């Protein structure tokens, strides 16, 4: 970093992007002006569809053929030697600019790497495409850059294939690929969304080093305000294709100017918000409550997925014990692969229990027959994670919500159930007319509310919610969580709330159970688990969670570094 720090590496002026679609042209980005100074981290935040990814991708000219770009994107090389307008560049010149002046880090590391080539080859490919390096030199450089992104034994690992690395390591390799040509700016499109919280903290640390050690500016696209607070120097908030606010990170979090930014920050769940509520709920319980028969009781529950040919069986859940009492909300937290979804599916009878005991409404699930379990199904509701696929695309919302009523004989056909369906839609605050719509005509949040309506249609005593808000934007998530809480209080069902997000679980759950690699490592109230975590994994999990406050996050980062060393 020998040049003056005030130089802009990217200067976007009046950028507008429209896409040709079946429904006519759609404007994705309108009149956006942005500048990225050398060596800074600019975060672009906004909900899905706000145009943040399109804006960032246009810097590299990576838009599909249906896109029409207007405006100017001036990209300056790192040494300040050349400046070019990406919008007008020819295909060949674009190839030159990509990688050298700007590079990209994608959201999903497992699909960003080609599975049939060694990672070193893939890094070297980019180096050789820009010429001047022999095979040997390129390899040496690949080893070097792998070492710098923190891959152990880079001399050996350089010849390994992508599947031999973990998700976090793969993201490191993708970052190494981006860093290989020492670009002036790295565009990171949701670089940590697909990763677990503990891995996310490490990748964020690496990105911070990209800025400090490599001197690269970073354009960080994210919807996670905690990540923004952790990494960004400056923030641009996008809403419906326009930038509504641009400020440095402290100003934005402490004194947001725009109404939308304020709402966005207000919807982010924060740790500790649910404690008062939990205490209040606990106090309101009747005397004999603790002795009541649990709705769900697991004793040494084991769930094993049989391995394929010549592969060992996979033990998803290893001897877990817990219980859910009537009217209680149990939050189940853990990273991907920890077995939390498997437990939820086992309770709903979607996955076979292979060992131990799991009692659901008094029925033993270990070796249960569908005929025995069928009457119990009536008393269980399930909300799925992905609102996009949890509705039959050919049925109207009313038909889908009526389905449980028809199956259990409470109504002869969907038409007859319409009265009850309207009530249910009203309960989840959807207009009655939405019943006549098809799933694709609803937004994600609306669909998830309809999904809730379907789950409570039979007035179940137990509701299983498998990451119900993880596919939603924060502002929508807040609405759904509030609604969920309201319904739970009104209807009083017991609930297993599965999530990877500690803050969300804390908001709703009476008790929190932490799963780690198929084992239950800690269980207790929010105050116990989040206030004074006992197990090292819980401590690490908690310290890795970025909080939406730059100053508090800086403190937590020191704590995280202490735990790591």
């Amino acid at each position, binding site marked *: 970093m020998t040049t003056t720090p005030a130089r802009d590496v990217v200067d976007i*002026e*009046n950028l*507008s992007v*429209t896409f*040709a679609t*079946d*429904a*006519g*042209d759609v*404007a994705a980005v*309108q*009149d956006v*002006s942005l500048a990225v100074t050398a060596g800074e981290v600019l975060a672009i935040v906004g*909900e899905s*569809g706000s145009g943040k990814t399109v804006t960032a991708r246009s810097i590299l000219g990576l838009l599909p053929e*249906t896109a*029409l*770009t*207007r*405006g100017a994107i001036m990209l300056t090389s790192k040494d300040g030697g050349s400046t070019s307008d990406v*919008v*007008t560049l020819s295909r060949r010149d674009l190839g030159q600019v990509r990688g050298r002046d700007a590079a990209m880090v994608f959201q999903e590391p497992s699909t960003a790497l080609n599975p049939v080539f060694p990672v070193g080859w893939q890094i070297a490919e980019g180096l050789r495409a820009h010429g001047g390096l022999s095979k040997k030199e390129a390899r040496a450089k690949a080893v070097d850059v792998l070492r710098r992104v923190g891959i152990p034994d880079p001399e050996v690992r350089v010849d390994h294939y992508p599947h031999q690395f973990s998700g976090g390591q793969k993201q490191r390799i993708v970052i190494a690929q981006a860093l290989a040509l020492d670009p002036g700016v790295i565009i990171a499109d949701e670089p940590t969304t697909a990763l677990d919280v503990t891995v996310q903290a490490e990748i964020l640390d690496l990105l911070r080093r990209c800025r400090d050690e490599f001197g690269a500016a970073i354009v960080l696209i994210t919807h996670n305000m905690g990540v923004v607070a952790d990494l960004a120097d400056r923030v641009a908030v996008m*809403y419906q294709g326009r930038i509504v606010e641009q400020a440095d990170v402290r100003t934005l979090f402490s004194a947001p100017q725009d109404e*939308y930014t304020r*709402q*966005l920050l*207000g*919807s982010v769940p924060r740790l500790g918000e649910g404690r008062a509520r939990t205490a209040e709920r606990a106090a309101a319980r009747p005397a004999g409550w603790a002795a009541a028969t649990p709705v769900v009781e697991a004793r040494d529950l084991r769930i094993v997925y049989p391995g394929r040919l010549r592969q060992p069986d996979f033990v998803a859940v290893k001897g877990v014990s817990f219980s859910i009492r009537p009217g209680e909300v149990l939050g189940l937290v853990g990273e991907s692969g920890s077995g939390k979804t498997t437990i939820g599916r086992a309770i*709903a*009878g*979607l996955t076979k229990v292979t060992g131990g005991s799991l009692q659901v409404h008094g029925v033993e699930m270990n070796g249960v027959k569908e005929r025995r379990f*069928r009457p119990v*199904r009536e008393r269980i509701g*399930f909300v*799925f*994670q*992905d609102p996009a*696929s*949890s509705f*039959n*695309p*050919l*049925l109207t919302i009313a038909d*889908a919500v009526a*389905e*449980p009523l028809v*199956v*259990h004989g409470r109504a002869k056909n969907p038409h007859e159930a319409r009265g009850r369906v309207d009530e249910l839609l009203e309960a989840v605050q959807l207009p009655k007319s939405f019943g006549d719509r098809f799933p*694709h*005509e*609803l*937004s*994600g*949040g*609306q669909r998830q509310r309809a999904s809730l309506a*379907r789950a409570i249609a039979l007035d179940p005593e137990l509701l299983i919610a498998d990451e119900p808000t993880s596919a939603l934007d924060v*502002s*929508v998530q807040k*609405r759904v969580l*509030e609604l969920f809480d309201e319904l739970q209080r009104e209807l009083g069902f017991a609930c297993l709330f599965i999530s990877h997000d500690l803050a969300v679980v804390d908001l709703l759950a009476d008790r929190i159970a932490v799963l780690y690699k198929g084992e239950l490592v800690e269980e207790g109230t929010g105050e116990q688990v989040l206030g004074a975590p006992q197990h090292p994994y819980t401590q690490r999990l908690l310290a890795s969670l970025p909080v939406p406050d730059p100053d508090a996050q800086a403190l937590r980062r020191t704590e995280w570094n202490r735990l790591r060393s």
Partner: protein
Amino acid sequence: MATAASTVETAADVPAAGRRPRGWRGLPVVRQLRQSVGLQRGMLVAGLVLTGIFLLTAIFAPLLAPYEYNQLRDPSGPFGAQQEPSSAHWLGTTVGGYDVFSRVIWGTRTALLVIVAAVLMSIVIGVLLGLVAGYFGGWLDRVLVVVADAIYAFPSLLLAIVVGIVLNGGESSLRGGIMAAAISITVVFVPQYLRVVRAETVRIKAEAYVESARVIGASHWRIMSRHVFRNATRTLPLILTLNASEAILTLAGLGFLGFGIEPTAAAEWGYDLQKSLSDVTSGIWWTSLFPGLAIVLVVLGLTLVGESLNDLADPRLRTRRRGPATPADVAETSVMPGAYAADTLYVDQKGSEL
């Protein structure tokens, strides 16, 4: 209810896509026709016109054809064999003394009957087997897939011949002939439907809405009929049109080889072609040209419809209408005040949509 939250909600919860047109505009082929542009539209329209003519001819054959398909004489006497095209016989007569024009027109009926019978039978059987195989899996699935693969490996015409012989020996009435052709075509096509439906069923089985139905406690039959069936068969119209054209070729092939329908039972293009083989060398062109042309046009029409529907169903292959603005004039507008450029662009595209 916090009011702030609900305002965010209304802003964020805008429906993702425009509503799909309902009513007649939402009908399968009509929707694709409205959606298509350029060359794809040209192909689809050409295919639809050819197919339309084929269908109308088949329906109104008794009105259009001057003679019966097996008519050899009129009040003024026999037609005579191998007559050149004239005012009495527009396309001449065949070696057997039939009127070529009438036979070509009546032939559309036979072709249509075979298509309908073959496609109906293979769809019903194929979809049912595919659903069961994909949904339940296990040994039944494996057996069905192996059998389907074995049938695949068979040359389809040979199989059709075998089935034809088994079904009606030497007999060749209208019904027998049509059923022989239809069933032999069915046997060849069932594996195709089975595979497509099975693959879709396996995919759909893992979708959250099927799991959701299982959680609710819906029976297997209800899940299959209400949730899987219609979703798994959405791509069938595409295979259907392509198979229809294959059915015609198989029918003509059978007829040409002599396993088809006798001229006294129905008009069949393959048979006429075979009988005209010797005519070609003696310079009699009309007996072979017109049945051949009929086969080519009908197959072409059906294939065009099938291929363009196929392309239109795939968002990556579908070409879209776009505004008058092209990327070429970006360089020029980038010097203009941005807000103005953006606004005119927006207006332009709105205008072009109307």
